[in-house]
């Protein structure tokens, strides 16, 4: 018995929606916003791997690997930014970062 193609896509889109909901609902907290972005990137990875399994080409898995590398770079920079902002403003609340107008 094999896994239907559409069910994996439904799982991926539900995960993406949850990540989007996390970003929208926790928009006052930087760390939870980053977690939401992680969830969304994971669902995209699931879609790539599923396409790679569906058509038997390795490119989807390769792009998933690239996505992992991209995410690790993005997270390291974003968390360094969070630490920097916390050092300046003593908070991770986005409402306190109002001085950067424009």
């Amino acid at each position, binding site marked *: *018995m*094999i*896994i*239907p193609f559409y*069910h*994996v896509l*439904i*799982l991926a*889109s*539900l*995960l993406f*929606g*949850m*990540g*989007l*909901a*996390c970003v*929208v*609902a*926790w928009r*006052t*907290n930087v*760390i*939870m916003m980053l*977690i*939401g972005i*992680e*969830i969304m990137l*994971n669902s995209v*990875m699931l879609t790539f*791997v*599923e396409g*790679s*399994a*569906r058509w*038997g080409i*390795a*490119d989807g*898995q*390769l792009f*998933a*690997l*690239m996505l*992992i*590398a*991209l*995410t*690790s*770079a993005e*997270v*390291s*920079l974003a*968390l*360094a*930014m*969070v*630490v*920097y902002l916390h050092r300046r403003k003593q908070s*991770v*609340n986005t409402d306190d970062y109002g001085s950067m107008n424009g």
Partner: protein
Amino acid sequence: MEAILFYILSAVTLIGTLCAITARQAVRAIVYLVTSFFSLALIFYLLGAPLVAAFEVIIYAGAIMVLFMFVIMMLDLGHPEKLTFPKIRDWWPAVLLLAVIAGSILILAVSREPATAPGFTAITVREFSQALFKRYGVAVEIISMQLLFALVGALYLGRRR
């Protein structure tokens, strides 16, 4: 057998993610997310991608989530580390978005009955690495440069004046 395993794992993934986005403490959210990533790695393994599954466990659950944990512990966000939980007013746009996405999925699933998919082909590690280093060698170089730049940027942002 594979399909039953897939449904169990996808339920674990969805519930773990749901617990993560509604957790009241950031550390708990991270732990729930690690659970969800482990079951997602098993789904990758079921879909014939053992290498991606291993990288998911090693890099995502092992490195990125631990990095999050380090930063949360380092920041010392008050005692106890309670986050100000979003109010109902903050949740409704998110719930609206999720409802739109779930509704569109439902309409798609009802309107088009999917044909029985042909059996997928598992990609061996040899095939994967040959494609990676023969066809996408330039991309590997660019990714390594990107990681180097991220390292330099993180060092610049993290230095003490």
